[in-house]
Structure formats: C-alpha cells, structure tokens
C-alpha cells in the first residue's frame, strides 16, 4: 500500500516495500491467523464465564472490538480534530 514512493536514486527498495511482496506478506499473516484459531481444536480453552471458551471467541472479539474502536475514533475525529497549529497563537 506504500508502493507509490519512488526508490531513492535508483537504489532498489528494501524487500518490505516492493509491491510484489505485499501479497506474500498478507498470505503469511493470514496463515498465522488461521493457525491460532485452528489450534483451538486441540487445545481446550477454559473460559471464566462460559462464552469466552467458545471456538474462536478471542479472535472474533479482538477483531470486532478493534474495528469498533477505530470507527469510533474516526467519527470522534470529525468532532475533535483541529489543525496542529490550533493553539499556536496562545498568549
């Protein structure tokens, strides 16, 4: 997603910034994510309240709560964000 920056003086970009590698990175990340959920088939999770022992509960809860926080922050940003020189003329 950051492949728009041009390489400096023709030097090749580092591995991380080459667009062809982005797909590999996402696949690798996806595999790790899947693994952490699949492992739950073999490792019993002892919940404190019952529902938290459900299959993939932590994964779903982590993703959803984070998505909620990001969206909430974005909306609040419309209300609270000001240019960063907002207070510069303070006495």
């Amino acid at each position, binding site marked *: 997603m950051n492949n728009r*920056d041009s390489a400096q003086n023709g030097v090749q970009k580092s591995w*991380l910034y080459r667009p062809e590698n982005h797909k590999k990175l996402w696949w690798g990340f996806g595999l790790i994510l899947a693994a952490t959920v699949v492992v739950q088939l073999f490792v019993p999770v002892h919940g404190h309240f019952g529902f938290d022992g459900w299959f993939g509960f932590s994964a779903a809860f982590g993703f959803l709560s984070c998505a909620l926080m*990001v969206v909430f922050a*974005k909306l*609040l940003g419309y209300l*609270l964000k000001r240019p960063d020189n907002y207070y510069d003329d303070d006495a």
Partner: protein
Amino acid sequence: MLELIFPPAFILILGAFLIGPIRAPLRPLIVLGTPLLTLYAIWQMGDGIQLTAQFLNYEIQLIESSPLRRLFATIFAIMAFVGGLFAFRQAKWWELAAAQAYAAGAIGVSFAGDLITMFLFWELMAIFSTVVVWCGGTEGARKAGIRYAIMHLVGGVLLKIGIEGVMVHTGSIEIQPIPLTNIDGWLILIGVLINAAAPPLSAWLADAYPESSPSGSVFLSAFTTKTAVLALILLFPGQQILIWIGLYMIFYGIIYALLENDMRRILAYSIVNQVGFMVCGIGIGTEMAINGASAHAFAHIIYKALLLMSAGSVLYMTGRRKCSELGGLYHSMPLTALCGIIGALAISAFPFTSGFISKSMISQSAADQHLMMVWLLLLAASAGVFLHAGIKFPWFVFFQKDSGLRPKDPPWNMRAAMVLLAAACILLGIFPEWLYRLLPYPVDYVPYTASHLLTQLQLLLFSGLAFFALLPLMRRTLTISLDFDWVYRRLILSLMNRLICLLSCLNTALRNASNRVFSIIWTYIGRHHGPEGMLARTWPTGSVVTWVVVLLTVFLLFSIY
C-alpha cells in the same frame, strides 16, 4: 548503619545538588552512581518505620518500608539510573539535576510513612518535573511547562486541604486507607487522581510530556503517574469508583492515541491508558488485583521508558516528531526499531514479554470477582493497546512509507539504555517469578497456560488484522485533538476576552454618558458664572456706587422711622 540516618531520597537530592558545581568529566559518576547507591540503600532497609523526625509539632515518619513501597522505590531508582544513562551525554546538566531531584521526590513518596512527608515529596516532584518539561528548551515547552505547573499546584492545594482536613478530624497523619465519607477523603482522592491523569484533568500529560527533551520524556513517564498509583494503593484500595475511572482512562488513552499524529504524544496517551489498567485493578482491590496493579506499574515503567527512548532516539537523530513526516526508519536505525518493537510487544502484553505476566493478573482478578462487564472491557482494551501502541507506533515510525530519511542509530549510551530495558522486558516475561517475588502479597497465579497463551495470541493477532484492514481509516493528518484543556486554553480565555470587551464597551458607554451629563452641567454653570454669565459679569463702578447710595438711603430711612 548509614541507611538508617540517611533516607534513600536524600542520596538523590545530594546528587542533584552536586551535578551542577562538580567538574564536567565527573558528572557521569554522580548521574549514574547516586541511583545505584540509592538502590543499595533501599534494599538495606528492613520493613516498618525506620526513621522519624519532628515537624511542626508532628512526629513525621520519613521512612516506612514494606514490600509494596520497596517495589516502587526500586523501579524508580532503576529508572533514575537507566534514564541517566540514556541522557547523560546529550542532556544539559540542569536537566540531569532536575531529573535526579524529581526521582528523589518519587522515592520519598514511596517511603513516606505519613501524609505530611508524602505531601512534601509530592511537591518536590511537581517542582522538578516542571523543570524537566522546561528543559525541552522551546517556546512550546515553556508554555506547556507553565500549564503543567498550574495543574499540579492546583492538585497539590486540593491534596493539602484534604490532608489538613484528615488531620483536624481524625488527629492522625498516618498513611492508611481513607474512607470517602466526607470532603477530606474526596479532596485527597482528587489531588492524587490529578497526578494519575484521571478524567477530566488528564490533558496535562499529553500536553506537557511531548514538549520535553528526548530524554526528559523518559523521566517524566516514570515517576509522577506511578507515585499516584502507589498513593492510590495505600490510601484507596478497593474503592469501587476507581474501577470506572480506570476504565474511562483506558479507553480515553486508546481513542486519543488513535487520533494522534505526534509519536511521543501517542505514547503519552498510552501512559494514561496503562495507568487506567492499574487504577482499575486498585478499584477491584483484591490481593490478586493489587498484586496485578503493582506488577503492572513495575513492568509498565520499563517498557514505556523503552518506547519513549526509542521515540526519543528518532527525535534526537531526525529532529522530527510527527508520524506523517516519519516512516521507513527500520533500515537505517535497526537497533532503535528492534527495541521499539520489543517495547511495543511488551505494552501489548504479548506472550514472553513483561506486559503478559502483569496485565493478565488484573484481568484475572476481575474474572475472579465475577465482574463480567469489567472483564470484557479489559479484554477489549488489551486488544486496543496492541492497536494504538503495539502496532501504530512502530508501524508509522519505522515502516509505513519510506520517508527518505536515513538517520543512524543514536550514540552508544542511548543504545545501551535501550538494550538494558529491552532485555528487562523479555527477561521478566520469561521469568515472571523474579517480579512476583517482589509483590506485596503471595502470588497464586500461573500466567503461562496453553489456554491463556492461545486466547491472548488470537486476541492480539486479530487486533493486528483489524489495524491493517482498517489502515485507510487511520491516515495520518496534521491535526491535534481537542481535549478538556480546551476549556482552560480556549473557552475560559475567550470568555475572559468577551468579558474584557464587554467591560470596555460599558466603560466607553459610561464615559460618553458622563461626558454628556458633565457637559450639560458645564454649559449651565458657564451660562451663569462664565465670562459672559450674569453672575460673573464685571460691573461698572458707577452702578455699584448708585446701588450703595440706594442701600444707604434705605438704611437711613429705616433708622429715622
């Protein structure tokens, strides 16, 4: 028996006095030596009251030790040392001296056996932390320092009134749990909470810390908020209201950090977030929760200092502080990036880091008390920490786009300080019993179970997925976010300006009205007494003589008849 007559805090105060006058080549000896000497003194002391003195007819207890107090004093002394190591070649000597006096205040509060001693060291911290903020050296730092000082002096005044109330009403200055049954207790609580950056007065932290020097923010992150945590544990354990204040702080920190662009301000908001976990634990108040809050304070000071050192190194080497101007630094600053990532993993409570073994005790205590809602919110917050500090900070500073900057890693002393703390983050994660042994209560908790490891990894990695999936929503903007400080930096100011405008309008109106009235009176008087006025006219001598003759004639006639 040097320790018995010489409180650990005084060693640092002496050091602070010496740093200025001593010859420059010897300065590092004081900067690094006195914290180690202090650490030694801390561990030489037995439990209980060790030193008393007379002050204003009160017997004050300069030193009272216990495992809890020793734990906090230990980490404060360690931070004075590692912070000194990070700073001593780059920072000005007066910043180093102020930082030592500041650390002395924190250690003094840790061992304060009564409220008076606590208050004195509390104010010592307020004064010298302000100096540390000012050492940022910019106009922004000067102004932020003044706002910071005002906030802490207000907090100090509230605390003092509360303490005097307790002294008058109970006759005791002991440090012991204070009930919130009257105004005294509430004032003390508010005074302490201001230092913990609790709502609504939490904006001072994110306002002042990022204005300090690269090393200044490392010192600032360690002492003020964590002494407040210790004071809360000693004075208000198990106060239910703290659970909700803590939860508010946790989510406030996450949301504001998500909106922020200044890398050190992101970390400043995340201090509020982390202190929120501790405050929540103190509110739960069980032995497990207090252990968790104490352990988390210890672990947090280390990884937050590490994160701020990493950010401070970037600032020192590039002179830039905004995420929108940074990025891609991992290549040219590999060690700084690695240490930053280790700090980020630790704050996110990744397995095998210090955060994992400390934060989970607080969640566990919520579950043990069947506080389902609190537990769920803490769980969501743990995911949110990874989001706002764990990924956001390293991603935007060290990866993201290539900013074109090619700074090197910082000088050796800064690198050494970072490596020390990074090692501590990992070692505490692998050997939790090292920390558990120091906690105030016996620890009956096993952090490493397959179930805990798995759920934590799921939680964090899927938070990471949310971060990258929603990255477009988090595009960096050149903005700040309004906070409660808007009230005293803008609202009150604009109200005052309006009041001044109103008063000056009133002044003009009154002046005009009075001018008109006076001019009417003036004209009237002028008409009669002025040069042309009837009563002021010059009369000819002849007419006066005529009138005198008339008067004398009338008088003559009266006297005849």
